[in-house]
């Protein structure tokens, strides 16, 4: 190794070389390189931030979306179970049907049911003047299946004597609530067997 070093080193030549080879880098070149180094550091700072947060952000987003999807699927009603009034096709779950006609019929029934619910809800939202009774619309879908309010009947005061009760029944008939009127009439005849219908 020392022999190699002796062969490579030539002090006279080195000294002579260094004496004349003393050029310096042009200042413009220095500026260009240092500017580039600064720019790259700045770019790197941005990309480092992105790189540092990219993976955790992707992980959190994946977990969050998976959780939301699981929740959504668990809340979707399964086909074959009683319809809770929610259109299953809205949630992207197609109903299972035995035949194409059956499927179409089910879909139509669901549509009609939904329209009925919409109509009732719109009725309930209408002002009281349009609806003489202020009873909630949902309660009308009760035993009789008609659109009569449950309280469409005569009050106890009206039932106190046959005249006022009969007047109440007539009023119900005038309003078109014939079933309620018949029901009240039967009750009147039961409570007052001696009552005779006026001519």
């Amino acid at each position, binding site marked *: 190794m020392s022999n190699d070093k002796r062969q*490579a080193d030539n002090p006279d030549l080195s000294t002579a070389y*260094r004496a004349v080879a003393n050029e310096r880098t042009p200042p413009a070149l220095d500026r260009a*390189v240092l500017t580039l180094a600064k720019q790259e550091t700045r770019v790197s700072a941005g990309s480092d931030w992105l790189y540092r947060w990219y993976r955790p952000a992707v992980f959190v987003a994946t977990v969050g979306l998976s959780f939301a999807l699981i929740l959504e699927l668990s809340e979707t009603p399964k086909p074959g179970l009683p319809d809770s009034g929610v259109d299953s096709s809205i949630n992207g779950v197609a109903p299972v049907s035995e035949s194409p006609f059956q499927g179409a019929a089910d879909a139509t029934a669901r549509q009609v049911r939904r329209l009925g619910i919409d109509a009732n809800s719109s009725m309930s939202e209408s002002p009281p003047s349009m609806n003489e009774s202020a009873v909630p619309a949902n309660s009308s879908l009760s035993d009789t299946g008609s659109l009569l309010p449950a309280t469409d009947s005569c009050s106890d005061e009206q039932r106190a004597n046959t005249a006022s009760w009969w007047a109440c029944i007539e009023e119900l008939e005038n309003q078109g609530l014939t079933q309620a009127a018949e029901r009240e009439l039967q009750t009147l005849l039961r409570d007052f067997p001696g009552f005779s219908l006026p001519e």
Partner: protein
Amino acid sequence: MTTLTTIASSRDASLCRRDKVAYARGMSKQLEDSALMLRYRDGDIAAFETLYRRHNDSLYRYLLRLSANRQTAEDVFQDAWSKIIKARQNYRPTAKFSTYLFRVAHNCFIDYVRRNKRHGRETNTDPDLSPDQGEAPEQLAERHLARKQLDNALNTLPDEQRDAFLLHEEGGLSIDDIGFVTGANRETAKSRLRYAVAKLKSEMVKANATDKGIYDE
């Protein structure tokens, strides 16, 4: 050789001082270079500036004399530093930083020559010969002549020998490092350097003899 020796003696004091300081720094300087590069990798721009100031002139001179073309030297110089800057995230201090730097520059130069077939050599690599402080016109002329002699002598060398000599002088690289940078084995690198030194000495002696003859006449 007389001209060169005269100039060398006038600068001897400063050169010796510079060499002593460099020697005193010794091994730790290499560690500092790597540490500076690692600090720059982590975003410390001041560390890069320090590192750059240590090596910019020697790298520039290496490329200037290797290409013998100022424009080529500047292009390759910028390209080499740009590659080092961009690849800093992958930097691992497995070798001396200077070896790494000169290897990158060497490869950039090879690529440049391949890309630019019209790359030509100039006779004068350094038109910037402004007088030093207190330098007489005669001294300036002597320096100019000495530099011309050196450039002419270097230009007579085959490319590989010139490369080996410049890596040794400017990069301070050992024979092993020269082999690593140039992709040659150790014996080839050693032989190239030995031939280069021998030929340069002979060329300079010849040049001095010619100059002396001119002056004697």
